[in-house]
C-alpha cells in the first residue's frame, strides 16, 4: 500500500517539477522516489499481510515480488531516458508522470484482491500507455501505434468487462475470495454464465498480454511507438499482465482447471508458433523483438497452463530474465539507431569491432532470450518447462523445445551480424547511464544463470 502511495505522489511531484521548469531534477527525483518505493515494497516481504480496505488489496509475497521486479525494470528504463524525451518535445515532465501513473496502475494489478481493482489498475496502465505510444506527434508510425493500441485496448476491455459482469452475475461478488469459495462450494452445477464469463475474461486478458490469435496489434504498436516506450511496454507491462493473469487463475479458477486448460493450451501453442515463425522472417530488429516478445508470452502462458505450486516461481524467474535481456536489447537498439538512423539487422554489422562492450552485452542478452545455459533465460525456461513436466504435459514441452530451437536461429542472426560481418562504422559513444544499465543487466543475467538459487526458492 505504501508503495502505491509513494508512486502516486511521486508522479504528481514530478508533474509540478515540470511546471517550475526544474528539468535537471526530474530524473534524479524520479529514480530516488522509485528506490524509496522499492524499499517500502521489500519491507512488506513475509509480513503476512491480510487483505486491506474491505478486501480490495492484498499485498502478499506475490505482490511484493512482482512489484519489485516492475519497479526495478522501470528504474532501468528511466536511466535510459536521459536526453531521450528532450528530443521529442518540451513537455518532458509529463512523460515521466505518465510512466509513473502507468506504474501505479501496475502495482494495483499485481496486488488486487477484487475484480474492481483489477479493472481500475488495468485501465490506469492502459490509458497512460495509449498516450505514451503516441508522444511522437508528428511521426506517422507513432500515430498509428497510438490509434491501433487504443482501439484494440478499448475493444479488449469490453470483453474483459463482459466476463467480469457474468462472473459477478453467477457468484454475486467481485471479491476474489468469495468467487473462489463459490467455485469450491459447487463441484458440480456451477452456473453456465460463470463459464462464459471465464472464457471472455481469458479473451480480454490474452488481448492485453498479446497472445495469439489476439496478438495482431503487437508488432505494429511495438514498432511504431518510441523505442523507450516499447522497452517499457514489452517488459514491465507484459510482466504485470501475466502477474494479473496468474493471480486471478491461481486464486479463483484453479479448481476449474479441466475447463479452461484446453483453451489456454491451444492459445499457448498458437502463440509459440506464430511468434517464433514470423520472427524468423523479419529484417527489422525492433519488429523482430516484437515477435519474440509474443513468443516469450507463449512461454509464460505455459506456466499458467500447468497451474500449480511452482507456477508463480516459474513465471517470476522467467519474467526477471526476460526483463533484463529486453532492456539490454532495447538499450543497444537505441544507441545503434541514434547512430545509423534505422533499425535493421545490417546496422549491427561490425559492432563487435567498433564497440566490443555493446556487442558483448547484446550477445549475452540474445543468448539469454534463446535459453542457452549459463544465462538467466535458460533458468527461466528450465523452470517453466519443469512446471509443465510436473503435470505430465510431455508433448507440450516437446513443442516448446522445438520452438526454442527455432528461436535460436533469429537470435543468432544479430550475433552473426555483429561478429562476422564488416562495416566501416565509427565507434558509437555510450553515455555513462547506458553503460551502467547494460552492466547491471549483464550482471543480473549472468548471476541468475550461474547461481539461480538466489530467487528460485522465493515462494
Amino acid at each position: 500500500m505504501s508503495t502505491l502511495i509513494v508512486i502516486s505522489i511521486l508522479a504528481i511531484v514530478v508533474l509540478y517539477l515540470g511546471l517550475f521548469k526544474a528539468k535537471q531534477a526530474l530524473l534524479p527525483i524520479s529514480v530516488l522516489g522509485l528506490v524509496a518505493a522499492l524499499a517500502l515494497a521489500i519491507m512488506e516481504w513475509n509480513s503476512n499481510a491480510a487483505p486491506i480496505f474491505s478486501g480490495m488489496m492484498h499485498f502478499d509475497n506475490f505482490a511484493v515480488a512482482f512489484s519489485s521486479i516492475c519497479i526495478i525494470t522501470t528504474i532501468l528504463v528511466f536511466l535510459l531516458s536521459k536526453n531521450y524525451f528532450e528530443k521529442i518535445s518540451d513537455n518532458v515532465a509529463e512523460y515521466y508522470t505518465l510512466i509513473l501513473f502507468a506504474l501505479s496502475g501496475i502495482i494495483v494489478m499485481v496486488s488486487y484482491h477484487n475484480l474492481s481493482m483489477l479493472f481500475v489498475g488495468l485501465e490506469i496502465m492502459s490509458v497512460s500507455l495509449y498516450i505514451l505510444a503516441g508522444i511522437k506527434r508528428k511521426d506517422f508510425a507513432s500515430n498509428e501505434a497510438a490509434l491501433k493500441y487504443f482501439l484494440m485496448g478499448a475493444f479488449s476491455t469490453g470483453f474483459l468487462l463482459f466476463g467480469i459482469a457474468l462472473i459477478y452475475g453467477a457468484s454475486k461478488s467481485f471479491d476474489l475470495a468469495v468467487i473462489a469459495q463459490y467455485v469450491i462450494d459447487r463441484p458440480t452445477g456451477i452456473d453456465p454464465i460463470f463459464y462464459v464469463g471465464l472464457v471472455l475474461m481469458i479473451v480480454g486478458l490474452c488481448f492485453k498480454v498479446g497472445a495469439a490469435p489476439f496478438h495482431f496489434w503487437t508488432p505494429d504498436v511495438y514498432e511504431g511507438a518510441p523505442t523507450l516506450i516499447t522497452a517499457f511496454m514489452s517488459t514491465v507491462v507484459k510482466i504485470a499482465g501475466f502477474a494479473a493473469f496468474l493471480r486471478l487463475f491461481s486464486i479463483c479458477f484453479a479448481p476449474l482447471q479441466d475447463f479452461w486448460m484446453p483453451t489456454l493450451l491451444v492459445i499457448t501453442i498458437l502463440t509459440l508458433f506464430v511468434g517464433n515463425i514470423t520472427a524468423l522472417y523479419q529484417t527489422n530488429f525492433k519488429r523482430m523483438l516484437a515477435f519474440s516478445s509474443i513468443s516469450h508470452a507463449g512461454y509464460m502462458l505455459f506456466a499458467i497452463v500447468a497451474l500449480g505450486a511452482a507456477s508463480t516461481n516459474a513465471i517470476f524467474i522467467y519474467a526477471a530474465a526476460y526483463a533484463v535481456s529486453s532492456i539490454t536489447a532495447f538499450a543497444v537498439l537505441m544507441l545503434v539507431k541514434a547512430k545509423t538512423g534505422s533499425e535493421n539487422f545490417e546496422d549491427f554489422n561490425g559492432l563487435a569491432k567498433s564497440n566490443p562492450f555493446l556487442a558483448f552485452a547484446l550477445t549475452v542478452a540474445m543468448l539469454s532470450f534463446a535459453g542457452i545455459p549459463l544465462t538467466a533465460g535458460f533458468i527461466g525456461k528450465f523452470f517453466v518447462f519443469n512446471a509443465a513436466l510436473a503435470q505430465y504435459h510431455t508433448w507440450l514441452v516437446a513443442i516448446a523445445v522445438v520452438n526454442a530451437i527455432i528461436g535460436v536461429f533469429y537470435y543468432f542472426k544479430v550475433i552473426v551480424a555483429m561478429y562476422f560481418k564488416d562495416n566501416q562504422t565509427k565507434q558509437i559513444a555510450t553515455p555513462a547511464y547506458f553503460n551502467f544499465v547494460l552492466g547491471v543487466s549483464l550482471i543480473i543475467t549472468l548471476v541468475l544463470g550461474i547461481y539461480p538459487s538466489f530467487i528460485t526458492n522465493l515462494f
Partner: protein
Amino acid sequence: MENITSTIQAVPLNHYILLSAIIFTIGVIGVLVRRNAIIIFMSVELMLNAVNLLLAAFSSYSGDASGQVFVFFIMALAAAEVAVGLAIIVMVYRNTSSIDINILNRLKW
C-alpha cells in the same frame, strides 16, 4: 413504486442477459465491419453500455449494490477513454487528414 417493482418481477433475468448479449454483439460487429475510427470507438461504447446494463440488472435482481457501484467505475473509465481516444483521433487527423483505419495499415490487422 409498487408498480415499478411488479414490473421487474415480471421480466425474467434471462431476458436482460439476452438483451445485453445482443447489444454487446452489435458492438463487436461494429468494430469488425466499420473502418471509420470514430464509429469503431462508438461501437466500443455500445459494448461498455451492454456491460453496464448487465451489471445493473444482476445487481437489482440479487439485491447487492456492488454491481451498480462497478457501473460508476466503468462510466469513469468511459469518460477518461473518450477524452484520450478523441485526442488521439484528432492528432491522427491533423497528420493524415483522414481517420480511415486502413490508411494507417501498412500491415494487416
